[in-house]
C-alpha cells in the first residue's frame, strides 16, 4: 500500500518530499481512501536553534527553492517583530515587490508547467511545445519576468542576498526597475494568451464542490500578501498571535507531515482562499480575468485554485506596476551599498505571517539577549492543505467509482496538483495505488 523509494538508483541527487494516493475498493465499497504524505523530516526548526538573528532568514530560505523569498520574508518579519524593528515605507514596498514577483513566478510555474499538461492530456510540458508553442513561450516569459523582478530587488532570484532584518544591504537599480515596469505593462498579452487557453480548456477542470473553510490574511487597504490579520470564511477575523491554536496541528497515522484543522475537519489556504476572502480588493484586470471564468467569491471547487492563480497573476502584475510607480516617482531614497540597518538586539518572541504562493505561512522565533534563537516554529501552507485534500478525496472518490481506473487516477492527481504542493509531490513522485479486491 505504500510507495517504495530507492533514491540509490537515481542518477542526479535532489532531496524533496513525495505523496501517495491510496484508494482501496472492495465490492464497490471504498475501504481505504488516503492522501499520504511521506516526506522525510527536515529539522529546519532544530537547525535554527542557536543561530544568530542575522542568519535565520538565510537558513529558512533553503526550505523551498520555489518560494525562498516567501520564507525569507516571513523569517525577517518574525525577527523584526521579536526585536521591535520598524521598516521604512520604501523598504516595505521593496519587500512587497520581491514577494509579488516570486508569487508571480510560482503561480506561472504551477499553471504552465504542472497543471496545463493535465488539461491538454499530456504527461509534461514538453509535448505541448509542439501544439501550443506561443502559450508555452508566454509561460516562460512570464516566469522569467517574475524571476528578473525578484533578482533586481533581492540580488538573485532564489535565496535573497540583499534582504536583511530592518531593510536591504543594497538598493535596486532604478533604470532596471523602470525597464521591468515596461515589461510588466507588456506582459498583458502573455496573460491573455494563457487565459485564452485556460478558458478553452476549463471544461477539463472537474466539476466538484465541497464546502470548506478558507483561511488567509486580510488587510483593510489591499489584497493581503505581505501583511494583515487572519481571516476565516467561517468565523471572521482572527488574531495572528493565536496562530498555533488556529492551525491546531495534529499528527496523523498516514502522514509524516502534520494535518491541521480549525472550525471544521479541514480548511484550505492558497490562491482560492485569498480570492474568496478578499475578492473585492483585486485589481480591475484581475477581476476581468475572474469574470471570464465566472469565478466569484464563495467558490468551493478546489480545482478552481488553478484559475484563482491566474487571477492572482493578473493582480500581481497590476499591483507591482502601482508599487513601482510609487517607488520611482521622485526616485529612491539613497543608501550606501553594504548597508547594515540599525538593529538593537534584544530578547523576545516574534511571529511573521505572510501570504505566499500556496497560502498563509507562519514563522515564529524566540531570541535570547544575545540575539540567538532558542525556539523556532514554522507552519507551511502545504501542510495546512493536507487535511482538506483528504476530505476532498473522501467526498469525491465515491462519486467517480464508475469511471475507468485511469480516469479516477487522473482526477485525483489533478486534485492534489490543484493545491500546488511542491514539485516533487505533484509530478513524478505522485503514485496512485488501487487495490480492488
Amino acid at each position, binding site marked *: 500500500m505504500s510507495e517504495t*523509494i530507492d*533514491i*540509490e*538508483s*537515481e*542518477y*542526479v*541527487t*535532489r*532531496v*524533496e518530499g*513525495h505523496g501517495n494516493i491510496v484508494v482501496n475498493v472492495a465490492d464497490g465499497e471504498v475501504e481505504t481512501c488516503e492522501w499520504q504524505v511521506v516526506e522525510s523530516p*527536515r*529539522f529546519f526548526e532544530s*537547525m535554527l536553534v542557536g543561530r544568530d538573528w542575522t542568519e535565520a532568514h538565510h*537558513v529558512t530560505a*533553503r526550505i523551498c*527553492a*520555489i518560494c*525562498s523569498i516567501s520564507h525569507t520574508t516571513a523569517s525577517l518579519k518574525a525577527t523584526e517583530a521579536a526585536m521591535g524593528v520598524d521598516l521604512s515605507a520604501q523598504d516595505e514596498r521593496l519587500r512587497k515587490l520581491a514577494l509579488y514577483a516570486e508569487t508571480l*513566478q510560482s503561480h506561472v*510555474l504551477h499553471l504552465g*508547467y504542472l497543471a496545463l499538461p493535465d488539461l491538454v492530456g499530456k504527461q*509534461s*510540458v*514538453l509535448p505541448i*511545445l509542439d501544439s501550443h508553442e506561443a502559450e508555452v*513561450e508566454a509561460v*516562460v516569459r512570464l*516566469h*522569467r519576468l517574475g*524571476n528578473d523582478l525578484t533578482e533586481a530587488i533581492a540580488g*538573485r*532570484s*532564489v*535565496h535573497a542576498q540583499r534582504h536583511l532584518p530592518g531593510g536591504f544591504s543594497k538598493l535596486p537599480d532604478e533604470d532596471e526597475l523602470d525597464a521591468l515596469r515596461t515589461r510588466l505593462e507588456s506582459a498583458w498579452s502573455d496573460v491573455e494568451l494563457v487565459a485564452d487557453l485556460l478558458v478553452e480548456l476549463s471544461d477539463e477542470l472537474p466539476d466538484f464542490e465541497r464546502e470548506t473553510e478558507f483561511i488567509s490574511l486580510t488587510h483593510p487597504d489591499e489584497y493581503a500578501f505581505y501583511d494583515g490579520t487572519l481571516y476565516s470564511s467561517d468565523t471572521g477575523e482572527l488574531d495572528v498571535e493565536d496562530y498555533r491554536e488556529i492551525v491546531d496541528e495534529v499528527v496523523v497515522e498516514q502522514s509524516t507531515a502534520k494535518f491541521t484543522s480549525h472550525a471544521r475537519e479541514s480548511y484550505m489556504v492558497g490562491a482560492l482562499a485569498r480570492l474568496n476572502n478578499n475578492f473585492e480588493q483585486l485589481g480591475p484586470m484581475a477581476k476581468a480575468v475572474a469574470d471570464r471564468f465566472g469565478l466569484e467569491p464563495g467558490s468551493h471547487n478546489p480545482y478552481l485554485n488553478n484559475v484563482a492563480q491566474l487571477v492572482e497573476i493578473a493582480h500581481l502584475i497590476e499591483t507591482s506596476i502601482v508599487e513601482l510607480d510609487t517607488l520611482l516617482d521622485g526616485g529612491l531614497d539613497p543608501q550606501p551599498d553594504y548597508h547594515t540597518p540599525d538593529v538593537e538586539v534584544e530578547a523576545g518572541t516574534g511571529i511573521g505571517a505572510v501570504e505566499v504562493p500556496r497560502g498563509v505561512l507562519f514563522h515564529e522565533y524566540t531570541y535570547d539577549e544575545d540575539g540567538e534563537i532558542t525556539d523556532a516554529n514554522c507552519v507551511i501552507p502545504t501542510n495546512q492543505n493536507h487535511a482538506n485534500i483528504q476530505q476532498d478525496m473522501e467526498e469525491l472518490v465515491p462519486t467517480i467509482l464508475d469511471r475507468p481506473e485511469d480516469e479516477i487516477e487522473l482526477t485525483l492527481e489533478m486534485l492534489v496538483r490543484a493545491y500546488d504542493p511542491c*514539485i*516533487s509531490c505533484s*509530478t*513524478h*513522485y505522485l503514485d496512485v495505488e488501487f487495490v480492488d479486491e
Partner: protein
Amino acid sequence: MSTVVIALGNPLRGDDGIGNVLLDRLRERGLPADVEFRDLGDGGFDVLHALADADRAVIVDAVRFGGEPGECAVFEPDDVAAVVESRGSHDSDLFELLDLAAAREEAPERVVIFGVQPGGMRAGERLSDPVETALPDLTDALVEVVEGL
C-alpha cells in the same frame, strides 16, 4: 560566445552543496569575462532561463553515478538516458528542463554536467571528508571542463 556555470544543490545538506562550493573556487580562477557563474539552489525553471542566455553551459551538482566519494563524472544529458533506465523520479526534473531548453530556439550549443559522487548528504553544512579532500582536484578538473568547451 558565452558560457554559464550553474551550481545546483542545497549547501545545508552536506555534499549536496558541492556545486556551490566549487562555484566559489571557480570564481577565483581568473576565467574569461564571458564565463558567468550562477548558483541556482534547487534549480527548477531558473535553469531554463540561465541556459537561454548562454552558448555553452556546465551544470555542477552532486551526482550518484557509482563512483567513489569525491570522484567526478563529466557527461552530457543524452548520456543519462543511455545509462539510467528510468530517470523519472528525479524530483527537480533537470533532464526534462534540459529537453525543454533544447526544444526551444534559445538552446545553448552544448550542455555538460559535472557531477561529483557524494559521500553524505545529511543535514549540515560540512562536506564529507573525501569530498573536502578532493576539492583542489575537483576545482582543477572543473576549470579544465569550462575551458575545454
